[in-house]
């Protein structure tokens, strides 16, 4: 269906950043908002309206719980073309035997139950199926799942925290967060240590529930981590996800959102700092399958050093039933040195024109020399000027997240990373 501005439902483009869908509603269109695009970087995007290449057709197999339903990837598939398969330690081809150990430390406030349940527990797998072979492998391989239940109407004053500390070797896992109607919770998963980890995380939000989920990837540089995050957002519920990736050799995360009813809201934020040799990949999917839901995606990353590689895929699908949708997605990358590479691909698929608004933006740039000059002209040595620009770049997003206690932690984390690296 071709969107028709006269029929209403289209909001005016946001200042300066949006593609104007009303003018470019044909098939696909390249997104160009590059400033000083570094060599080797790729910032493309597409808006597809009933086009042949869609999120579904791009995948090499339909979602499934069974690893056997997915062919072993060879690297040219759409969903694998940016990932260094040879560094996945066999998570993708069935050779990774679960012989490792990971120390798990869960702390939950009173009223919250934490259970270890067998694979056939009915609460597993409700938020979504694995969408690629690695996620399916994790689903097929875990022995026991963890189910964390926040009862309905419980408003937690303390966060639920899960600390996973890798002690080497391959592990698989599965965690379900079952959030009752009108409950409110902050959930934090911290990842540290050395691990080859493939684990999926599910969130099932009851009507009107409010969840903030923070996932911090602070692994050792040797770690490999793949995870699919599925959130099923109940009617009028709010899900806020904050993904912070600083560590790990290869990190590949798939945060995904579906709506169980109208009025749901998803905010997906991400920060990454990709150093030399690191591969950090964030692949988001917001599936607007119910009317009057909102989604807002904002990921920002800084890269530095030889072979630092960040990948950001932002897929949004507005299904025919999802009238009244309001969605926006943004990715910004700051490339600090030569030798780093960014692939940023926003995709927006629209099956109804009866929406409030839809837009996306992606930009990858180098340091703005004028900013450096301005700060240096105020006496700041170049290294400090650079640090303040990077800090500001992230602070803008951190301010937007709107959680004071988390803000502080993130800023401290960024400061540490900056002190160690931007010299």
């Amino acid at each position, binding site marked *: 269906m071709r969107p028709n501005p006269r029929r209403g439902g289209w909001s005016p483009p946001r200042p300066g950043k949006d593609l104007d869908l009303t003018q470019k509603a044909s098939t696909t269109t390249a997104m160009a908002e590059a400033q000083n695009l570094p060599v080797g970087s790729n910032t493309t995007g597409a808006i597809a309206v009933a086009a042949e290449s869609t999120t579904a057709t791009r995948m090499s197999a339909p979602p499934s719980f069974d690893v056997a339903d997915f062919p072993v990837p060879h690297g040219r598939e759409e969903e694998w073309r940016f990932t260094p398969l040879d560094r996945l330690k066999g998570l993708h081809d069935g050779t990774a035997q679960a012989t490792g150990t990971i120390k798990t430390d869960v702390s939950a406030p009173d009223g919250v139950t934490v259970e270890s349940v067998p694979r056939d527990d009915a609460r597993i797998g409700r938020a979504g199926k694995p969408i690629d072979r690695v996620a399916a492998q994790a689903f097929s391989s875990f022995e026991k799942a963890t189910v964390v239940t926040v009862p309905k109407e419980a408003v937690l004053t303390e966060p639920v925290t899960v600390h996973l500390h890798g002690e080497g070797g391959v592990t698989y896992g599965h965690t379900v967060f079952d959030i009752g109607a009108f409950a409110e919770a902050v959930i934090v998963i911290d990842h540290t240590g050395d691990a080859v980890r493939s684990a999926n995380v599910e969130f099932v939000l009851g009507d009107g529930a409010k969840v903030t989920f923070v996932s911090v990837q602070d692994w050792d540089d040797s770690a490999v981590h793949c995870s699919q995050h599925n959130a099923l957002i109940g009617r009028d519920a709010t899900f806020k996800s904050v993904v912070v990736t600083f560590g790990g050799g290869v990190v590949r995360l798939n945060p995904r959102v579906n709506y169980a009813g109208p009025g749901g809201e998803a905010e997906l934020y991400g920060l990454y700092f990709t150093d030399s040799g690191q591969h950090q990949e964030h692949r988001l999917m917001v599936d607007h399958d119910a009317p009057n839901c909102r989604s807002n995606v904002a990921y920002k990353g800084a890269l530095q050093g030889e072979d630092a590689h960040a990948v950001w895929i932002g897929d949004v699908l507005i299904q025919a039933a999802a009238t009244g949708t309001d969605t926006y997605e943004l990715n910004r990358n700051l490339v600090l040195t030569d030798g780093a590479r960014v692939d940023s691909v926003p995709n927006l698929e629209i099956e109804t024109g009866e929406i409030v608004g839809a837009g996306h933006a992606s930009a990858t740039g180098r340091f*703005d*020399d*004028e*900013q450096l*000059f*301005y*700060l*240096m*002209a*105020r*006496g*700041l*040595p*170049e290294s*400090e*000027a650079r640090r*303040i*620009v990077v*800090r*500001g*770049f*992230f*602070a*803008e997003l951190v*301010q937007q997240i709107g959680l004071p206690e988390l803000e502080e932690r993130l800023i401290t984390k960024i400061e540490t990373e900056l002190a160690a690296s931007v010299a």
Partner: protein
Amino acid sequence: MATLEINDLHVTVETDGGPTEILRGVDLTVKQGETHAIMGPNGSGKSTLAYSLAGHPKYTVTGGSVKLDGEDVLEMSVDERARAGVFLAMQYPVEVPGVSVSNFLRTSATAIRGEAPKLRTWVKEVREAMERLSIDPAFAERNVNEGFSGGEKKRHEILQLELLKPQFAILDETDSGLDVDALRVVSEGVNRVREGGDVGTLLITHYTRILRYIKPDFVHVFAKGRIAESGGAELADKLEEEGYEEYVKGGATA
């Protein structure tokens, strides 16, 4: 007494057609406590002079010298020049997203003064300086230059001038785009700094309007990349009457 001495300064800028010479032998000496107005038509190279003195990488010095009390300014990096006491109030200051004005001011003051100002006196100092420039206190929590109006940007530049107390202040078209009220407020700020007697001021402007508020000791007419004529405040009156025509005719401007 500190002296800024510019001798036979030649500067080029890279253009599509190769390097183009913008400054063609500028001679100027500014002493602490003096105010020099540099006036000239568009494209005469006034702003190039300002940015070259501050060390903007876009401009290449191909000849001449700039000395601050005998020290070679051209050998210094941008930040070294700032710490040596050269301040450039920019015509188009850039946005620095995610960096608050208060954080920015304190970071600059720390860099320029060589130590972090004591928090209690600093907060008071900033608050008072902002009040004098009729800047809303909420301004301190905004990100640097982000969404600032033209007038706010200029006030913010002069706020920095007042707080950083340089030896030499270069004001690049600080008057451009200001309405009369803003022009008065900004000029008063500049005058407060001048009254201390510790700053040498280079006031770069296209219009004589700001000279009604800031009285220069010397006026220089800038044309075709160099100083074409120098005089006292009366030269500004002549320019007010006659414009720049006399200086631009007889050849294309740079």
